[in-house]
C-alpha cells in the first residue's frame, strides 16, 4: 500500500537526453503502452518511480510492525490466523515491490542493501500511518479496515500505471488488500456489536486514527497550494487522481460505513457539501505530518530500531550467506 505523493512539479527533461527518444516514450505512454524495466525511459521517470516504489515497498515492510504487536495477542484462534496471514501478505508486498525498485536502481549500481541503509539513515521515508502507536486490539481492526481501505483507494488508482512491473505488482497487491480490509472490518464489526467496553475501545481507536487517515493521502492538491504545474506522476500516467481526490474518494466510501456502525468522527466541522459534492473537514496538522514522516512520529524510533536490530543481529548470517559455497538444491 501506502504511498502518498509528495508534490513534485514537472520539470523539462534534461537537455542531454535524446529529444526524439523522449517524444517516442511519451507517445507510448499516451497510447497506454506499458514501459518495461529494460526500455529506455527519461531520467525523471526513473527517479520518480524509484522514489515512489521504494517508499511503497519499505512502507509495506514497516507496515507489518504495528500489527505485529497484536499478532500474538489476537483474542481467538481464528483472529490469530487472520492477522498472521495479513502481516505475511504485507511482507510479501514489500518483497515484491523492492524487487521492482531494485531493477530500476540497477543502472546506478544501487541495491536492496542500499535501500535498507537509506531507511535507517532516514533518507528513505515510510508512510505516516506506520509511525503511529497501537494501543488496543481495536487498532488491529481499524488498521485493517481503514488504513488498508485507504491503501486500496490509492493503489487502485494506479492499477493502470504506465510502468509494467509496478502495474503488475499492484494487480496482485490490490487483490490481497481486499482480504485485509475484510479482515479488519470483521474485527471492527465484532467490537461495534460487542460490550460497552468493546464499543468504547473501538471509538477511541477511530478518534486516535482519524488525523493519520486524513494525512494518509498527503497534503492537498496542487490547486490548493496555488500551483498549476502538472504533477509528475500524473504526467507520466503513473496515477490518475490528486491527493485530495483520493482523500475525497476515501471519505465517500468509508464515512457512511463509519456512521452506520454508530461511530463518530472527532471533527465538528465535518459535513458533506452538496453543491461542491465534496466533504468539508478540518485539516489535520500538516506540520505534524512533516515531523512524522521525518521519523519524529510517536513510534518512529522504536519501529526503526527493530529494523536496525534485525540488521545488526543478522550480520553474521549475511556474511555466512555471501560466503556460501554453491551447493546443489
Amino acid at each position, binding site marked *: 500500500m501506502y504511498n502518498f505523493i509528495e508534490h513534485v512539479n514537472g520539470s523539462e527533461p534534461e537537455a542531454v537526453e535524446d529529444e526524439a527518444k523522449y517524444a517516442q516514450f511519451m507517445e507510448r505512454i499516451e497510447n497506454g503502452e506499458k514501459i518495461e524495466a529494460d526500455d529506455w525511459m527519461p531520467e525523471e521517470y526513473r527517479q520518480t518511480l524509484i522514489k515512489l516504489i521504494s517508499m511503497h515497498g519499505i512502507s509495506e515492510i514497516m507496515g507489518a510492525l504495528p500489527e505485529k504487536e497484536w499478532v500474538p495477542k489476537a483474542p481467538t484462534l481464528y483472529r490469530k490466523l487472520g492477522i498472521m496471514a495479513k502481516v505475511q501478505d504485507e511482507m510479501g508486498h514489500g518483497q515484491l515491490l523492492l524487487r521492482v525498485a531494485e531493477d530500476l536502481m540497477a543502472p546506478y549500481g544501487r541495491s536492496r542493501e542500499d535501500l535498507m541503509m537509506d531507511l535507517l539513515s532516514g533518507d528513505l521515508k515510510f508512510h505516516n500511518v506506520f509511525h503511529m502507536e497501537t494501543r488496543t486490539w481495536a487498532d488491529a481492526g481499524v488498521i485493517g479496515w481503514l488504513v488498508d481501505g485507504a491503501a486500496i483507494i490509492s493503489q487502485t488508482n494506479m492499477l493502470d500505471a504506465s510502468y509494467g512491473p509496478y502495474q503488475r505488482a499492484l494487480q496482485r497487491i490490490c487483490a490481497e488488500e481486499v482480504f485485509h480490509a475484510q479482515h479488519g472490518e470483521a474485527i471492527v464489526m465484532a467490537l461495534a456489536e460487542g460490550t460497552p467496553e*468493546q464499543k468504547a475501545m473501538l471509538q477511541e481507536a477511530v478518534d486516535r486514527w482519524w488525523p493519520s487517515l486524513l494525512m494518509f493521502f498527503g497534503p492537498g492538491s496542487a490547486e490548493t497550494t496555488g500551483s498549476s504545474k502538472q504533477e509528475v506522476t500524473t504526467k507520466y500516467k503513473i496515477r490518475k487522481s490528486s491527493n485530495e481526490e483520493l482523500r475525497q474518494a476515501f471519505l465517500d466510501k468509508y464515512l457512511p460505513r463509519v456512521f452506520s456502525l454508530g461511530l463518530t468522527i472527532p471533527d465538528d466541522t465535518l459535513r458533506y457539501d452538496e453543491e461542491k459534492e465534496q466533504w468539508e473537514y478540518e485539516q489535520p496538522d500538516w506540520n505534524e505530518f512533516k515531523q512524522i514522516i521525518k521519523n519524529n512520529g510517536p513510534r518512529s524510533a522504536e519501529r526503526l530500531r527493530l529494523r536496525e536490530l534485525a540488521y545488526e543481529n543478522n550480520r553474521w548470517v549475511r556474511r555466512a550467506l555471501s560466503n556460501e559455497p554453491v551447493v546443489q538444491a
Partner: protein
Amino acid sequence: MTSIDTVEALLENNEALQAAKTFLFQLADDDYITSFRGSEWLGLAPHIEEDVAFSSITQNTMGHAVLVYQTLEALGEAEADKLAHARPAGERLSSVYLEKPNGPGTYLDEPHYDWALAVIRLYLYETWKKIRLQTAARGSIRPVAAAAEKILMEQPYHLAHWKMWAVQLLDSTPEAKERLEERIAEAWREAGDMISFGGHGQTFLENGVTADSEEALQLRWLEEVRSVLPAPAELPLKEAGDGRRKEHGSDLDQALKTCSEVFTSDREAVW
C-alpha cells in the same frame, strides 16, 4: 489391536481416549508455543524473503495447533479457543525447550534474537514433529491418524526449510558454524523433553495412538538429525525442565500472558 475408527468409538474407550488426548495436547501445545515464538520473529529475520517464508510457516503451524485443539474439542475437551487461551501454564504439555525465548529482549522492546537458535530449534523440532506425526498416522486410532495425515501434507516443507538453513550455515563461515554448534550443544542439554512422550510412551503404543515405541522413535530422530548436524550420539538431556510432566519455567507464563491478554480481558465477549 483393533482399530478405533470414529470419534464416537473413541469416546467409549476411556483408556484409548485418555492416551489420544495426551498425545494431542503434547502436539497442539508444542505447535502453539512454536507459532508464538515464530510470530515474535516477524520483521526481524535475516532478509525479507525469509520473513515471508518464516511467517508462512508460523501461520501454518498455528493452523496445525488449531486443527489439533479442535480435534480435542470434538473429544469432549473445552472449545478450542479456551484450550489455547484459558489453560494455565501448569496444565500445558509443551516442551520447555520450545518455550525458551528467541533471545534477550521482548518482541516489542530490544529483541536481540538469535538466528542460530531459530534454525537449530526449528530443525530439531520439525524433525521430531514429522516422526511423531508419521507414527500417529500409522496408528490405529483413526481420528488421531486423520489429524496427523492432514498436518503431514504441509509439514515436510517446513522441515525442508529449516534443514536447508542448517546445512547452508554449517557449510559457510567458521563463525556461523560455531554459532550453530553452540546452539546444538545447548539443545543437547535442554531438548530432552521435546522428544519424549512424558512417560506415556507405553500407553500410546498399547492403545495404538502410535505405531512405534517411544525409544524407536527417539532413535529414528537421533539418527536423522545426526545425518545433518554435528551432534552427540546420545539423546538430549532435560536440564531446563520437563514440559511433558508440566514442569515449566517463567518463560511459558510470560508467553501465555501475552497470547491471552485480550482474550482474558473479557472472556465472555465475542471478539
